C-alpha cells in the first residue's frame, strides 16, 4: 500500500519465522521427542482445524469485519453431522448436510451484516449464542459417537505418514492464497476493507463481497468441523468452544491489522503453527501445562509488538 509495504511484509514474516524457530529450538533442547518427523506431522494434524478456521477469519478481517461465531458454527455443524448419522442418513450425505448448514450459518451472518446494516461484532456475537444454543439443544447436551468406520476418512487417515487432513489444509491454504492474491475478487475484498466508500464508488458490489466473505468463513468452519468430528469420532454441542479467539489471535499475530484491508495467508498459517507448538512442547517436555497460557500469551505479545511497534513508520525514521 505504501513504500514500506514490501520490506515490512518481509520483516514481519521473518519475525514470525524467528519466533517459531526460537520456540522450536527451546523445545528441542527440552525434549528429544520434539523435533522428530512424526511429531512435526502430529502437530500439523492437530493444527489443521485451527488453521482452516483462521484462514476464514483472515478473509473476514481483511474485509473490515469480524466473525465471532466460527467456533459455534463448528459445533452446530458437528452436531448436524452426528444427528443426521444417528437418524440413518448415509455418512456422505450427512457430511454434505453439515457443510451446507455451516455455509448457511455464514451466509445468515453476512445477510444480517449487509441487509440490516448491523455491525458484524454484534451480529456474530448474537449468532455465536444462537448457533451454540442450537448445537447443544439438538443433542440435548449429549454426545453422539456411533459413526460408521468409513467416517474415519476425513480425520483419521494417513497417506504414507502424512495425515490426510493436513493435505486438505494445504489445499485450503493454496486456494485462499490464489483467490485473495491473484484474482479480482481478492482485490475487491481488500478494497472493501481499506475504504468501503472508495470501493463502492469504484464499482465494487460491497454487499456481494460481504456475503461471500461470511459465507466462506462459515464453509471453512464446516470443513474444519467435519475433520474435527472425524478425528475425535464424536459429535458434541460444545465442540469448538473458544476457537474464534484462537483464530482472531492467529490473524493478528500474523500481522494483519484488525482494522481490515490486508490479508496474509502465509503469516496467518505460520501464526497457527506457532500457537500450536506451545501445548505440544509443554507436554513433551513434561512442563506443568497450567503455565502454557503464559507462554502462549508471551509469544503473542512478542509477535504483536514486533509487528506493530517495531515497524511503525515513525519508529523506522528515527
Amino acid at each position, binding site marked *: 500500500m505504501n513504500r514500506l509495504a514490501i520490506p515490512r511484509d518481509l520483516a514481519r514474516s521473518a519475525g514470525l519465522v524467528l519466533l517459531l524457530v526460537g520456540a522450536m529450538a527451546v523445545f528441542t533442547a527440552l525434549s528429544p521427542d520434539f523435533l522428530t518427523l512424526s511429531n512435526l*506431522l502430529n502437530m500439523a494434524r492437530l*493444527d489443521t482445524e485451527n488453521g482452516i478456521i483462521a484462514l476464514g477469519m483472515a478473509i473476514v478481517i481483511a474485509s473490515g469485519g469480524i466473525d465471532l461465531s466460527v467456533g459455534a458454527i463448528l459445533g452446530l455443524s458437528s452436531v448436524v453431522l452426528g444427528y443426521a448419522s444417528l437418524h440413518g442418513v448415509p455418512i456422505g450425505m450427512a457430511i454434505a448436510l453439515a457443510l451446507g448448514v455451516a455455509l448457511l450459518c455464514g451466509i445468515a451472518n453476512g445477510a444480517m451484516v449487509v441487509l440490516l446494516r448491523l455491525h458484524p461484532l454484534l451480529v456474530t456475537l448474537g449468532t455465536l449464542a444462537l448457533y451454540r444454543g442450537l448445537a447443544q439443544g439438538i443433542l440435548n447436551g449429549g454426545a453422539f*459417537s456411533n459413526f460408521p468406520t468409513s467416517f474415519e476418512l476425513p480425520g483419521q487417515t494417513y497417506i504414507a505418514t502424512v495425515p490426510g487432513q493436513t493435505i486438505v*489444509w494445504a489445499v485450503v491454504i493454496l486456494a485462499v492464497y490464489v483467490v485473495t492474491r491473484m484474482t479480482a475478487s481478492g482485490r475487491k475484498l481488500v478494497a472493501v476493507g481499506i475504504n468501503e466508500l472508495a470501493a463502492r464508488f469504484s464499482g465494487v458490489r460491497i454487499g456481494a463481497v460481504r456475503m461471500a466473505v461470511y459465507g466462506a468463513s462459515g464453509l471453512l468452519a464446516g470443513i474444519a468441523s467435519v475433520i474435527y468430528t472425524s478425528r475425535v469420532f464424536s459429535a458434541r454441542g460444545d465442540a469448538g468452544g473458544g476457537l474464534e479467539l484462537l483464530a482472531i489471535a492467529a490473524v493478528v499475530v500474523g500481522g494483519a491489522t484488525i482494522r481490515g484491508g490486508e490479508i496474509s495467508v502465509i503469516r496467518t498459517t505460520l501464526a497457527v503453527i506457532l500457537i500450536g507448538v506451545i501445548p*505440544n512442547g509443554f507436554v513433551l517436555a*513434561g512442563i506443568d501445562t497450567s503455565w502454557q497460557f503464559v507462554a502462549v500469551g508471551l509469544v503473542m505479545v512478542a509477535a504483536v509488538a514486533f509487528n506493530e511497534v517495531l515497524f511503525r513508520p515513525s519508529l523506522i525514521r528515527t
Partner: protein
Amino acid sequence: MMAISLLAVLAAGCGSSTGGTSTSGTSKVIVLIPKQTSDPFFTDAYNGAKEAAAALGYTISYVGPSTADAAGQVTTIENSIQKKPAAITISGDDPDAVAPALKRAMAAGIVVSAFNADVAKDARKFFISQASDELIAQGIVDTMAAQVNDKGHFLLVSSTATAANQNTWIAFMKPYITSKHPNMIIDQIIPGNDDPATVLNVVSTYLAAHKSSTTGVWVIGGGMSAAVKAEQQLGIDPHAMPVAGLCIPSDVKAAIHAGLIKNCVLWSPADTAYANVYAIDAYIKGTFPKGDGTLAAGKLGNLSVTGNTVNVGKPVTFTADNIDQFHF
C-alpha cells in the same frame, strides 16, 4: 503443503544434531491426564500417583487441559504419544471423544488406563474405580445413623435428578436402610444442583415447613456446608439436626473444625491414582489379573479386580482429625 514443507525444512535444519529418536519400550514415564489441571481434586490425584511412582521407579508427567475440555484431552493424548511413555492414564471428560486417540496410543504399544471417570471400554486396558458405589451408599447411611440413634425422618439433597452416580447411590441406600436401619425414613429427595446457593434455598424452604418432623439432612451432591448455613438461618442447632453425606473437603473444612458437621464421606483421589500406578506396573510386568483376581497395591493392600476394573474399595470418612490432609 507450505506448512509441511516449512516444518520439514526446519526439521532438516535443526534436527541433525539431536538425532530425534528416543528409546521405546524402556520408558519409565507415566502420563497422567486429569479432566483439568487446575482442579485441586486432580492435584491430590497427582500427589498420590507420585508417591507410588517413587516407590516403583516411574516418573509422572502431569499434563492436560486447564479447563475441562474433551478436545484439549485429545490434543494432550496425541502429543503424549510422541513422547512414547510407558503408560497414559486419564480421567475421561467424554468417554467416546478421547477413544480414537487412546486407541492410537495402545496401537503404539503404550499401556492405557482410566481412573475416576471411565472411557470407552475398548479404548483402555483397565479402569481404576475410586470406591464401590455400594460402600459409598453404606458410608452415607452409617455416618448419619450413628448420630441419630438409628431412627428418624430425613431430607435427602441430591445433585441433579439425572446424574447417574447419584441415582446409583440412592438405589443402594434404600435397600440398605430397609435391611439394616429400618427406623430411618427418607421423607423427600430434592435436587441441589451441586450448587451451594441452590442447596441453601431448597433446604431453607423444606425445613421452614418441616422443621419439627425432620431428624437430619443428607447432602450427597455438592454444597454440604450450605445445608448447615440453612439450618443456622432458621435457628436450628446443627448438632441437634445433623447434616451428613458426601462432601468435598474444602467445602466443609471450616464446618468440621467448628464441630457443625461431625463427619462426611468421599473417596480419595490420591488413593485412586496411587492404585493406578501399581496397576500399570503390574500390567507392564504381566502380573495384572487376566480375569477376576487381586492386585497388590502397596500401602492399600490387595485390591479386588473384576472385569478389568480395579476397585480401590472403601470410601474415606473425613473428620476433624484427617480432613487437613485433603486439599481438594
